[in-house]
């Protein structure tokens, strides 16, 4: 279904809807042409490898205390390579901990965004398509959540229920649902006046079929794009929560928690707090740059402009 969106967006409208290989090739070549997007995509790929393999490979090294390496400074080459970024007050390798913590950090943000995407997206489809009481209630609820100081909500909820991984994800997901709801609704409001919806209805398609087979795929590029940006934002918020001590609790580690740990040693070992924060910044930047590129690729108008200018 997605490939057909790309195909119909290109200059050659006659291309059959199932031309997946060439559509894929188009995307790859456009990625290769955009250096900035390529670098950020490569960096994100490395992070994903760390997420997938890090804890299985390095869990022991991240936990092992090594008193010989206490507060080891970064970039001293006479130590094992794992200590290239230094070690914390207990002699644990900062690099190993960053790699292992990537799993928690990325999976928490990813799950939260995915949840709010699915819930907010579905509600947005309904709110956009069926105006009236349901839509009004959904929108007011979204307003209420948006107007709530989200950090206060997080603090209260995480204080009532214990701040485990699941609750942190839940709080983050709830606070971001309105964004997806509003975006999808705005798109649907515009799309449902289009001719293809009218024709589908004239052919006797049910409301659900129209919504999920005809409207939803058109909204998808916008939503995926938004999800990349939200991912960056949610990661910052989760790090903030962990930093304040109300997010993920030790012995679990996330990047935010590592910065918070390092705060006690800024006088003697700056690297403990510095590196994890730098990684958060780099991932956030890459997600932003990648989503910029994604917007261009998934937007038919911009894509067409790019292709004509390249030729």
């Amino acid at each position, binding site marked *: 279904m997605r490939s057909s969106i790309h195909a119909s967006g290109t200059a050659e409208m006659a291309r059959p809807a199932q031309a997946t290989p060439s559509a894929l090739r188009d995307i790859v070549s456009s990625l290769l042409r955009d250096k900035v997007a390529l670098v950020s995509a490569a960096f994100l790929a490395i992070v994903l490898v760390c997420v997938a393999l890090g804890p299985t490979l390095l869990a022991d090294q991240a936990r092992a205390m090594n008193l010989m390496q206490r507060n080891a400074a970064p970039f001293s080459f006479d130590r094992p390579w794992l200590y290239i970024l230094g070690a914390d007050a207990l002699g644990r390798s900062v690099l190993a901990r960053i790699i292992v913590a990537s799993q928690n950090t990325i999976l928490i943000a990813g799950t939260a965004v995915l949840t709010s995407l699915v819930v907010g997206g579905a509600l947005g489809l309904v709110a956009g398509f069926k105006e009236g009481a349901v839509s009004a209630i959904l929108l007011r609820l979204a307003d209420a959540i948006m107007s709530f100081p989200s*950090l*206060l909500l997080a*603090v209260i909820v995480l*204080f009532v229920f214990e701040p485990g991984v699941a609750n942190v994800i839940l709080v983050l997901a709830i606070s971001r649902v309105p964004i997806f709801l509003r975006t999808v609704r705005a798109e649907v409001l515009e799309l449902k006046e289009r001719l293809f919806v009218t024709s589908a209805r004239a052919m006797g398609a049910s409301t659900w079929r129209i919504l999920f087979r005809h409207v939803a795929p058109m909204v998808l590029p916008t939503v995926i794009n938004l999800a990349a940006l939200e991912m960056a934002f949610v990661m910052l918020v989760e790090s903030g929560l962990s930093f*304040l001590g109300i997010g993920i609790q030790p012995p679990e580690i996330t990047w935010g928690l590592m910065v*918070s740990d390092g705060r006690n040693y*800024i*006088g003697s070992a700056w690297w403990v707090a510095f590196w994890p*924060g730098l990684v958060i910044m780099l991932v956030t930047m890459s997600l*932003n740059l990648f989503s910029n590129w994604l917007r261009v690729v998934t937007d038919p108008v911009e894509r067409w402009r790019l292709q004509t200018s390249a030729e």
Partner: protein
Amino acid sequence: MGNFIFKRSLQSVLSLALLIILVFFLARFTGSPADLYLPLDATEEMRDQFNQRFGFDDPVYVQFFRFLGGLLQFDLGESIQYSKPAVEVVLQAFPTTLMLAAITMPIVIAVAIVTGSLAAFRPGGLFDRIASLISLIGASTPNFWVAIVGVIVFAVWLRVLPTSGTGTPWHWVLPVAVLCLRPTGVLVQVVRSSMITALSSAYVKTARAKGVRARAIVFVHALRNALLPVITVASDQAAGIVNGAVIVETVFGFPGIGKLMIDSVLLRDFAVIQAAVLVTALAVFIINIVVDITYALVDPRIRHS
């Protein structure tokens, strides 16, 4: 205009009521304050006395109606941790946060408008690229981390700025700088894209054809029309700071309202939480009204009727 403000107030009162109900009941789920404030070996009698003094011995719905009754007389209850009226505690902390917002936002807006406009003047040019990169870095940096790095560099290594506290103007430099970073990064991008749209419009071409100077085109003709989305985003950011710049207040030991809110949740000081939420919500409401009026001033096509 009066009609419009009335309508907006009505809407705000509704969502404020929802907010207060939520905070009131959620906060009471966090547990009994008596466990926290009395010694471990407190007798049943002492607990009863404590609960009676702060009214925790009544059922929750009775407490809620008493709270509503007090609200009508501007009495928001007594703080447990400070043994003072909650309103007083909140109004002591609020000026610090308001001051942070009042210093930060003008800097953010001024820097963003100048940088974003200049970047939009030649999209893809050298200045645009540098500005885009720096604003992206600003928007992507976790502020607790910048705060810590700032302390390491300026307080620990260079020893030119204090680490925390509010004594002198120097104490405000780091916190304000950290607070400015992310909003500026985001706002520069908003100004830039909004200005690019404005600069490609017909009236700008007319102005160019007439021979108006470039600076006048950018800062007079285009900017006024590009301001609406900028005002929206800037007001959101201002509301965010007024709601409590928790992280900055925590790292730099600023006695602001964000820190007060978090501390009060942790210490189960319900009256202070409720008072703080009410006061900040009121402030955010005032910001929104001012913003709506500014819309009408900037763009005469918008009439609030």
